[in-house]
């Protein structure tokens, strides 16, 4: 009787050890898979590790610095790239119509004057939060010309649903013709 019991308990112990090993192997595999997914999206898709943190005082945006009203919109830099500056506020983006050239490196600089907003340019992978006190910086390039909608996608108050802007991607020549005229470009009315 005693012998059978001990043999049985050895069997059980061996079974438990096997199960534990399998379980550990599965768990480590799942974690490794998740890390792998993170690496793959980080390298090959737009996924980004913690973004470019930069702070700014949201109450004095309009007084001085790069977010004064006359400096909002698209600026042509010395190296030919475009810097687009946008303010999100309850309940509109300024400028309301953003114009950029296709096939040109573009840097977006976006911040909020009041509460947390968001911006998403439909049909592209551009999707960022717009937070008061922080400047969201990201680089992109539009391959094709066309119009995109840019809604605020972070609930920002009772007028949130009316907060959106247009993004107009025009070809390089048309853009440089526009750029010859004014300092900062928008397609506002």
């Amino acid at each position, binding site marked *: 009787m005693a012998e059978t019991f001990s043999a049985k308990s050895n069997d059980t112990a061996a079974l438990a050890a096997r199960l534990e090993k399998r379980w550990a192997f599965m768990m480590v595999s799942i974690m490794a898979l998740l890390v792998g997914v993170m690496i793959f999206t980080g*390298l090959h898709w737009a996924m980004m590790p913690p973004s470019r943190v930069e702070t700014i005082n949201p109450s004095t945006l309009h007084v001085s610095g790069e*977010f004064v009203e006359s400096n*909002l919109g698209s600026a042509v830099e010395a190296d030919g790239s475009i810097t687009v500056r946008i303010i999100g506020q309850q309940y509109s983006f300024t400028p*309301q119509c953003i114009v950029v050239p296709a096939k040109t490196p573009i*840097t977006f600089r976006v911040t909020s*004057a009041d509460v947390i907003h968001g911006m998403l340019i439909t049909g592209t992978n551009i999707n960022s939060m717009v937070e008061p006190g922080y400047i969201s910086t990201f680089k992109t390039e539009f391959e094709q010309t066309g119009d995109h909608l840019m809604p605020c996608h972070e609930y920002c108050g009772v*007028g949130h649903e009316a907060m959106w802007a247009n993004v107009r991607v025009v070809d390089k020549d048309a853009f440089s013709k526009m750029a010859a005229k004014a300092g900062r470009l928008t397609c506002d009315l």
Partner: protein
Amino acid sequence: MNDHRPRLISLRNPWFTASAGAVLILFLFTVFVGFVWLPSAQNDALFKGLLNAICSAAGVPRAWLSEASPPVQPKAPVSSVVLTPDMLGGPSSGGSVGRGATLALRCTMCHGARGVSAANTPNLAGQYEASIYKELRDFQSGARTSAVMAPMVVGLGDQDLRDLSAYYASLPRGDVSAAQQAHAMPNIVATGSPMRNIAPCGSCHGDMAIKLGAPWLGPQPHDYLKSQLEAFANDRRHNDISAQMRNIARNMTADEINASASYYAGSK
């Protein structure tokens, strides 16, 4: 019996060393991935180099726009008032109602003895203190132009403007609820027009929510409201910070301007 069992958490327990060791290795590897590998793959000079990659991934604030053309300065003066919830607070900076009432004598010929008048000027009784203060400062700086108001604010100091704002804010509002209830709230006030980029008036000017700096609109004279909306729409008035009101007024139709002005005026 228990004395013979090996301790669970011990380096001599192969289960413990293997599992804790594997987790530690995985942790160190993910730290390397998150703080070094993935940031370094970003196409930005501030991510290059070990220290840069780690600092950037950890969220150390820095300037991300290296070279840029200098900011374009405004052609006409824009509002330089800094709106914060406590801008008029504090015992030293807060306005004095009595002093404001004395200073307000110069305002009474247009704005009425108690801040209400039939002269198609804005009614100031019960207006938000911050809104009055902001407009006065904008008249002084030239951000808002008015042939009538410009000479009136010459020579007034910052404390004078605070006192005037405190005085008018302290006066009782006229009873507008009855007048406004006579008209159903028009769509532009209640819901705006989301498909045309127009937030409801009530989302900033009362009714639903109040935004700092935005004035209380009821009751204001119909003609005044209409002329100001048209001035915003045509860019003749531009002291709204970052085009906040111009963005809205530009998209409004003439009917919507009329409907909202009538509603806030409490008249047809």
